[in-house]
């Protein structure tokens, strides 16, 4: 209730928050991978997450999606792990290509991937993790798993409910493939598809879980300019259908064109958060990426060795 109230009193352009991560910290033994990072994602917003390699972006994603249990901090999400709906309701929903439920108040998410998916947050992976020996359609159908309910007994008996649900799953999967532009490749094996198509297939699979928020881990890594353009069009299309998006990316032009807000992580800590323009012009961001002479000054411990390495020749 309170959340709804505050949202209505502060009518921001991007709407009410979908995800609110506060003080997320992840420690692996002595390594502090993510340190006290806060992130709020609002409805219909595209948020970029940037930072040099090893900054803890993917770790942060893993904390959000429950693959890791954060050492401390809370991830709150506008939705609770829902039970799968009846087949009838799915058919009705399928009218829109990407269906979005009305927002619920923020509640803490349990750190379990399955619960996170059911609550309405889906992700893709940095190194593509498709089910390589399944077809594109089957991949997306697996994504429907958490939104369907037929169990062992129904599967063996094959009643009308099972057939209806199976048909709905298939239709929805095909629809999502059309949405990402892979409608004609439905029967192709995932492992045979071109790299760019695999990336898009992974997005379709994530969309199949009916998310409110989708996390994309480097969706354009290794793509040529044309494919990158297509990817950003797709992300806009997803946003326009009512979803919120968080993107990890290295391609600065891509991210500054795409995002409403950008969060820059360096060595596990949030360096700056703001509009693309603010982040782009911040000297610390440039420094973190490109590195300057000052960079060496910052790490007093490493300096002698660094200097020795660089000045030896």
């Amino acid at each position: 209730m309170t959340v709804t109230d505050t949202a209505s009193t502060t009518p921001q352009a991007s709407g009410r928050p979908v995800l609110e991560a506060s003080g997320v910290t992840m420690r692996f033994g002595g390594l502090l991978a993510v340190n006290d990072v806060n992130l709020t994602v609002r409805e219909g917003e595209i948020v970029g997450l940037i930072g040099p390699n090893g900054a803890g972006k993917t770790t942060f994603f893993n904390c959000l999606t429950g693959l890791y249990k954060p050492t401390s901090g809370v991830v709150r999400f506008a939705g609770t792990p829902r039970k799968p709906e009846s087949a009838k309701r799915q058919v009705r929903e399928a009218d829109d290509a990407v269906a979005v439920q009305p927002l619920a108040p923020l509640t803490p998410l349990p750190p379990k991937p399955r619960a996170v998916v059911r609550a309405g947050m889906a992700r893709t992976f940095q190194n593509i993790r498709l089910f390589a020996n399944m077809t594109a359609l089957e991949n997306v159908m697996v994504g429907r798993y958490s939104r369907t309910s037929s169990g062992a007994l129904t599967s063996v008996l094959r009643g009308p409910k099972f057939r209806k649900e199976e048909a709905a799953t298939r239709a929805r999967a095909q629809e999502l493939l059309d949405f990402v532009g892979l409608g004609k490749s439905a029967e192709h094996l995932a492992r045979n598809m071109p790299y760019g198509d695999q990336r898009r297939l992974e997005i379709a699979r994530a969309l199949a879980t009916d998310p409110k928020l989708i996390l994309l881990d480097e969706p354009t890594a290794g793509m040529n300019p044309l494919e990158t353009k297509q990817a950003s069009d797709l992300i806009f299309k997803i946003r326009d259908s009512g979803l919120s998006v968080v993107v990890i990316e290295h391609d600065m032009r891509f991210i500054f064109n795409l995002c409403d807000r950008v969060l820059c992580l360096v060595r596990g800590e949030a360096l700056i958060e703001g509009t693309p323009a603010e982040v782009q012009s911040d000297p610390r961001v440039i420094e973190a990426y490109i590195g300057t002479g000052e960079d060496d000054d910052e790490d007093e411990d490493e300096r002698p060795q660094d200097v020795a390495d660089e000045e030896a020749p």
Partner: protein
Amino acid sequence: MSEVQTSTPAEPEAAAQPPVKPIAWPLGLLGAVLVIVGSFLSWSYDGSILNDLSINLYPGGLQILAIIGALLALVLLLAERGPLTTLGSWLDATLGLRALGLGLTLYMVLVIVAITMESDGLINVNPGAYVTLVGAVLILVSSRMLPLRQLRDLSQAKLPGWVEILAISVMMAAILFGAAYALGLTDAWSFILCLLFIGTVILALFRTGVMTWFGHVAQRHKKVLTLAAFVVAFFFPFTQRGSDANMSIACQVLIFAATAMGLNIVVGLAGLLDLGYIAFLGSGAYVAAMLSESAFSTIDWHPPFLVVMLVGAGVAATLGLIIGSPTLRVSGDYLAIVTLGFGEIFRLAMFNLDGINGPLLTNGPNGIPGIPDLEIGSFNFGDEHTVAGLELGRFSNYYFLLLLLIAFVILVFARLNDSRIGRGWVAIREDEKAAEAMGVNVFGLKVLAFAIGAFLAGLAGTIKAHQDVAVSPDQYIFLESAFLLAAVVLGGMGTIAGVLLGATILKLLPEKLRFFSEYRLLLFGLLLVLMMRFRPEGLVASRRRQLEFHEEDEDLAIAVEEERLIVEEGK
């Protein structure tokens, strides 16, 4: 026809490569004729061995096999050049001839060895056998000289629907008669020779491409094929003329196959390694024994058999849940060790529940003997029945019941495989982390596979107890689990036909080749090692499994995809 003859499709291209020897074709013809003539002559001086091969112009069983082989070779030769060239443009006759020639030569050599061994000396081999051997060698030599040819794509070969269904019927009838004939052979040499012959014919069929075509036909008429397979299985008891010897083996094969199918869900679909699976069969059997009317049964409650089946399967499934829920959180190797331990615990528990070391449930090492035959309604499974003048003994009754059971198990397997659950299992096998991140209930699905597998094994166990008349702990040793797993792996994980084939091979051969039993384990070990090296996906490969085993093989992936697209177009 003459038009076709003059324009044998791809001969010019093939002829360009190796020089065609004009002598090859007549040589093959001569070989086939020699095999036939030789087979009508006497092979052995001693008429008491190998079902009598000693009479001129009255061929015995093994001689008739040789004649069939020669006739096949003749057909292939005529397809190469002659009135059957239309057929020859589709089939790879040369490769088929090579397989046949090699097989027949091996067959004849073995026949001569067999006669020599059985009747003490090479002297007992009559000229007919040598004539046939020479014929077989001639076929082999001529096939080596014949050119290989470019062939048309067999997936394009479409005949009218009734011809294809007829082909399925003929194939099934051949399987029925082949099985009945092979099982009817009582002496080991005849059986081995018959196996060699069947193997040769199957290899030749594969090489010529008939099997590829048959595969396409089977794709198009799946239901007919399934129905035909069950009809053949149904008619098998009628070929046994009331003899229970083979039916007893057939029943054991069916129980073994049904259990292996259950294990196939766990191993083949969910990808979990279970080395103690026999315990679930055992728990079903023990429950049935304890609840039976046997004088030694320990529980004084004798419900109807349907209830017993459900209780037995339920107990097995519960055991599966108990053993599964703590261990399925650990990965592959640990699971194998835990299940292996569970299998042993089960056996020892049955050993110790004898009233002295624990409560009296199983009579310990003595087991529960004297389990009466099943009686469902007024139908007693111990009675003999006569249907259409053919006698059906006790084991035939069980055979029909087991056939129903295996149909049920196959149904469960096939339907689970093609459902949301099945897709979840594949996803888990492919990439467990990604599956979890996509909302697949990884742990739940693994436990489910375990429980369903256990349930089906329990069902089979309840019937097994009645059919075997007694249960005792030493029936459920680790070796049995290992054999079940071997049947699944050998046949082809995740397939129905493969596992049935694997189970049949692993259960039937030891029964028929008793003299070989000392080397049985050695042979199976060797067989498995060879399989893992050369064909890890099993005899009958599930397409998906084949892809999983050959991650690097791009051509295979593309071939599989094309196959899929053709099937989709067909729909």
